[in-house]
């Protein structure tokens, strides 16, 4: 589904990703771990198509298409979803209104019929209950004044609503209390299907207890320096990144 080859990415002329190769098959969940500043969020932004992240070398193929050639909203319509590390506030735009506009924009772009407000509301409510997102939150301006954990839960609510085929979760677990972590993990697990792939960026083994990955990659200084099964997370927890990075060098 996703095939990243020798990817080099520069921001403001500074190279951040330095030849990254990664392949994710449909139905798989891959975790990406790595020290602060290693380029995890950069990778997620490049996949989502944020401007200012220049691909200087390499390729990203998504379902056989050159992903880099698509505008961010086209990627979204084709099922690329990024739960952001720092969800953005949009004053004056109610959460519900935002969800409806985004969902219908994606549908329109895929040539599907738009949904009316009532249908969207029903769908949102069904997902919101499971994630403990209150009705009151849906009426408030998007992310404005939401706590860290509320913002993250809302990201997962959007993922559940849009039903993407490639979901990238950038540190969705940070800022969540134990109960919320479980809710979010359940939300993610319920979306695990043979057609859907996920890239889960995290610092903590704890999340991977709930969302058990098929594969773990360690990103350091813009490159994948170690890979392994779920037991790699335990090793990381025990040894720390420094040792792993050193071992890899």
């Amino acid at each position, binding site marked *: 589904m996703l095939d990243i080859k020798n990817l080099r990415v520069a921001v403001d002329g500074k190279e951040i990703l330095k030849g990254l190769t990664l392949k994710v098959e449909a139905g798989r969940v891959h975790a990406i771990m790595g020290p602060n500043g290693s380029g995890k969020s950069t990778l997620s932004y490049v996949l*989502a198509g944020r401007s200012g992240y220049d691909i200087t070398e390499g390729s990203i193929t998504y379902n056989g298409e050159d992903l880099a050639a698509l505008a*961010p909203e086209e990627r979204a319509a084709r099922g690329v979803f990024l739960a952001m590390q720092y969800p*953005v506030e*949009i*004053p004056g735009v109610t959460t519900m209104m935002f969800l409806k506009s985004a969902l219908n*924009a994606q549908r329109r772009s895929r040539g599907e019929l738009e949904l009316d407000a009532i249908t969207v509301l029903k769908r949102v409510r069904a997902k919101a209950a499971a994630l403990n997102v209150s009705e009151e939150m849906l009426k408030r301006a998007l992310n404005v004044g939401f706590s860290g954990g509320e913002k993250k839960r809302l990201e997962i609510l959007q993922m559940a609503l849009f039903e993407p085929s490639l979901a990238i979760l950038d540190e969705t677990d940070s800022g969540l209390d134990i109960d919320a972590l479980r809710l979010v993990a359940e939300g993610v697990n319920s979306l695990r299907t043979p057609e859907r792939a996920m890239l889960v960026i995290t610092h903590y083994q704890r999340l991977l207890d709930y969302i058990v990955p098929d594969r773990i990659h360690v990103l350091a200084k813009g490159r994948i320096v170690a890979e392994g099964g779920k037991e790699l997370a335990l090793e990381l927890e025990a040894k720390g990144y420094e040792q792993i990075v050193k071992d890899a060098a």
Partner: protein
Amino acid sequence: MSSAALETKDTVASLGEKYKYGFVTDIEMERAPKGLSEETVRYISAKKGEPDWMLEWRLGAFRRWLAMKEPKWARVHYPPIDYQDAYYYAAPKNTPKKQSLDEVDPKLLETYNKLGIPLSEQMALAGVAVDAVFDSVSVATTFKEKLNEAGVIFCPISEAIRDYPELVKKYLGTVVPVTDNFFATLNSAVFSDGTFVYVPKGVRCPMELSTYFRINASETGQFERTLIVADEGSYVSYLEGCTAPKRDENQLHAAVVELVALDDAEIKYSTVQNWYPGDENGLGGIYNFVTKRGDCRGDRSKISWTQVETGSAITWKYPSCILRGDDSIGEFYSIAIANNFQQADTGTKMIHLGRNTRSRIISKGISAGKAQNTYRGLVSVYGKAENARNFTQCDSLLIGAECGAHTVPYIESRNPSARIEHEATTSKIAEDQLFYCLQRGLGQEEAVALIVNGFCKEVLQQLPMEFAVEAQKLVGISLEGSVG
């Protein structure tokens, strides 16, 4: 939602073109000879079948105007206007004096349909009565009967001058005097039509009143005149909408609106102004020089202005409140959008004369392209205005690097008990907000529209529901092409 509201939504949803109102209706016109002279004034007055007192009033204004100079203090630039090179009266042939809609030229009705104004029973369902002014003449007023039952007068001002001369004489020119300013004086001399509303004592007007102004003829100025009087304890909500065809020439629009609220009366006046703004290169567009003023003449009266200004090449407009009555309230909610080469200089004046008077100003200015957007506001507290209160908030949003936003607040206080608060912010659409929207599937323009509508929310909320939807779409359309 009512069917008319749905219809409005549908019409709006079907907008494809940037300026969908840019069509011209091919209809035979009757015009005054080109240019401005005493003869022109007499011609207009005669066409309207006006009484002598009205003609004299106009001539007085005209003589006064000859000695006046065009104001130059606003932050707007335009080549000199040749007042002799325009028509001051244009009317569709054979339209006046219609008793019912059936008699109106079907082409005109079609025009209004294109504009999304269903002049039909559906408007009644929505509780809206419409008076439509096409160039210089009021074409059809709907739902007169229902309003008549309530005792509300809602008619073309030309008709009011004939049928209710005492009321008109009593109030016309009492809020905006004939000599007020260059454009208002010009209007007083040559105004062709407009709307008159009188709401009697204690009556809550049973429906939203609405006027659509349309400039169709070329080289024609439009000078409409609106007078709304809310008698003691009454309430009325009034909405005006404006559009004009695309033309390469600039057309002058100089309207005057006067509002009078007596004791305990309330007037809510909303405008969605979408005059043709000119093209991407600054060619054409309406020069909109408008004087709007409300007089809170009675104690505990309230006047609230809400405006959404998206059109016009130049906007020069300061809807104001004179807070004469004790405990009276003035409000001004404004969204002014300037894109491409548009120039907007708009704001308000809150004149506190009475005790315990309160005013509130919320202004949202959005600039894009090479546009210049100025908020200019005066809050003035007179010596006798004990305990006057004002709150002003001016927020500017910039899209792109070539536009400008300017805030020019004037504050005068001659009473130490006054409390005046002023807050101002200037911001840009943040890249991360835009990216977040795009990532969730919204297109560039839709994302900008969404963010800007969020920015304007406090003002949009003030509009009657049906029109808020239209205004939101308009906000998006006027900013098309501003990012990217």
